[in-house]
């Protein structure tokens, strides 16, 4: 059994967790949600073994290549889902989150992302790599929860709202998104911006240089600042803030994937 077998097993387990979750939609009061939760927990264990094996084998942080980072992001998302399921009950949001996890796992295990360990260029050899990337991706995992909840909020058909319980259900999605941002935003601030600035000042002698990756994390962050404040103004809360939470996560995804492929800069090795 190597790192990839465990990754595959975790992938399959997450897939089952997702299926169990969606099954619970059709069987009210069934225990499928519990099944989904425990499958997710099991998948998390298998996935952790895969990440640890990789780390021991490569001797460096498990997020230095795109494959490693996507796998770690998926792992963080699972952690976020488990925590939120325990604390707030994700209800119908849960299975859609598993869908995101499964998509990330599919990407991580696809041949499009090379699996080889690549030696670290000098700028990446720092313990700030561990802090900066892990805290950022953990934050983004919670922002993914807000993304899915907000998307479901936006996709609730207006017609349906007159039905009993639907307005309250949508209100819950709004609450869920806010709670996820309340975890994700501070983590993202700490990991992406503060740790990022500290590391940049150590490696390059300046904490901020308007490098495209830096600017895109700032853009992501500003979206969530916008999200928090739209909730203070009557008329913006609800639909508009949900839209901003969705856009904010898309900005996070672009920072993660897009900047390396479409824009050039100092960060282009990562």
């Amino acid at each position, binding site marked *: 059994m190597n790192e990839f077998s465990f990754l595959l097993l975790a992938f399959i387990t997450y897939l089952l967790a997702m299926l169990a979750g969606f099954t619970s939609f059709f069987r009210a009061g069934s225990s499928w949600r519990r099944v989904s939760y425990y499958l997710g927990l099991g998948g998390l264990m298998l996935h952790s073994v895969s990440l640890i094996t990789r780390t021991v084998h490569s001797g460096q942080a498990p997020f230095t290549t795109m494959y490693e980072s996507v796998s770690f992001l998926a792992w963080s998302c699972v952690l976020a889902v488990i925590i939120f399921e325990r604390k707030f009950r994700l209800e119908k949001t849960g299975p859609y989150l598993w869908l995101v996890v499964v998509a990330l796992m599919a990407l991580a295990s696809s041949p499009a992302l090379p699996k080889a360990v690549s*030696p670290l260029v000098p700028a990446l*050899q720092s313990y700030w790599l561990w802090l900066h990337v892990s805290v950022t991706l953990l934050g983004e995992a919670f922002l993914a929860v807000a993304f899915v909840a907000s998307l479901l909020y936006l996709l609730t058909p207006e017609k349906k709202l007159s039905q009993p319980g639907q307005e309250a259900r949508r209100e819950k999605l709004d609450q869920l998104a806010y709670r996820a941002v309340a975890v994700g935003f*501070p983590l993202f601030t700490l990991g992406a911006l503060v740790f990022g*600035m500290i590391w940049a000042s150590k490696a*390059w002698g*300046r904490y901020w240089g308007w490098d495209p990756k830096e600017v895109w994390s700032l853009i992501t962050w500003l979206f969530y600042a916008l999200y928090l404040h739209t909730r203070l103004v009557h008329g913006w809360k609800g639909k508009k803030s949900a839209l901003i939470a969705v856009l904010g996560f898309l900005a996070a995804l672009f920072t993660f994937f897009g900047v390396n492929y479409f824009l050039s800069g100092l960060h282009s090795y990562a």
Partner: protein
Amino acid sequence: MTPGAWKFLASVRLAIALLIIIIILAIIGTLIPQEQEADFYRQHLPRSSALILFLNLDHLYRSPLFLSLVFLFLLNLLFCALQQLPARFRRLRIQEEPITGTGSEVPEPRDRSRLERWLGDDLPRLETIFRKRRYRVRLVTTEQKKVFLARKGLLGLFGPELVHLGLIVIIAGGLISAIFSQRISIALVEGQTEKIPGQNFLLRLDRFTTEYYPDGSVRDWKSLVSVLENGQVRLRKTIEVNHPLKYGRLSFFQMSYGQDWDQTSLELEIGWPEGGLQTIRIKTGESINLENGARLKALSFIPDFQVDSRGQAYSRSPEAINPAALVEMVEGDRQVFLGWVFFGHPDHNRYQRQTLPGLKINLKSFSAPTFSVLEASSDPGANLVWVGSGLLLLGLLASFYLPYREVRLGQRAGTHPVLLTYARKNREGFRQEVSNLLGLAGKKELKDKTDE
């Protein structure tokens, strides 16, 4: 300042508008390459180059437009804080007096209700209930009045203000950095000593090493340097990527390295027409007397030889990919040989002048001194940024995880008791929670009004 202008500058609506505009501009700045020459835009973006240059989109993040938006945002944050802080402090300060009356002295917003009876007959019980929930409790009972005050999460009351203050400090630090930070690049070959401009010390590079991974890629660059002051070594340290040297107000970073090709030592092999080989060592720019009485001169060295469209030789890169040397031989004042000789490819040698048929010159080896490029930077704004970041993070923690809670219960002799509750967020939920705690749930309490 008119009240209207004040309100505008302190408004969340302005904050939302500014955030949206700044996001859009920041995105544009990542789509248009920054800090290029004007010609770059004319060449690559011919249709929009005029607009780009006119709007300063080529250096967007330091353009007057962007900076004034940031400045307006700074004002917005300041006015917002000035608007919020007095009420926050008043809330902390006011402890008992006001709530014995109508409660109107407690800053808004507040949720107020008039109760039918005083709940404090069992004051110790009330106290225990709230203390158990980590509230700080204060009790005053005299003939004239009874006051019960319980609250917790004082830092949470100031959460947003700490966040905003942190941002103000960070932006201030950023402005100071933009104006006062300095960066100087210093290239040193081994053994070279250089005075650092504006400082009273010198820096000497003692040794420069490059370490490689087994696959040949670079693992690290290390510069062992000495700091010299008044002719004495004050400090020796190895500077590596991610491990700068701090000395005085400057930090020295390992930025890059290179080879000084103008100082290349060449090993040349000369094959005489009449047979026989002579090997000589020569540095670029030097000349040397040969066996036959001629002089050989190494005119120049190019590490990555290329010829441009006009036939001029130049180096495509600073790496030794296609090394070549230009060599000249003179007898008296007559040039008898001139040609480019290539390392590793003698068959490519280009003789431009050859008056001695059969003469061959080959480049056997070459070496150039390596120099290390260090960057000295001083950034007086950085510390403010770190302080601001700390405040920002503390503020976020307080905003989201230390919710402020306040319960006031008071009665003046001969009047109805008054209950006032306040939480920064989810006030209705908190009111409900307090009602349950006080055993009011389901009872008829007279809720006057909730001030919004």
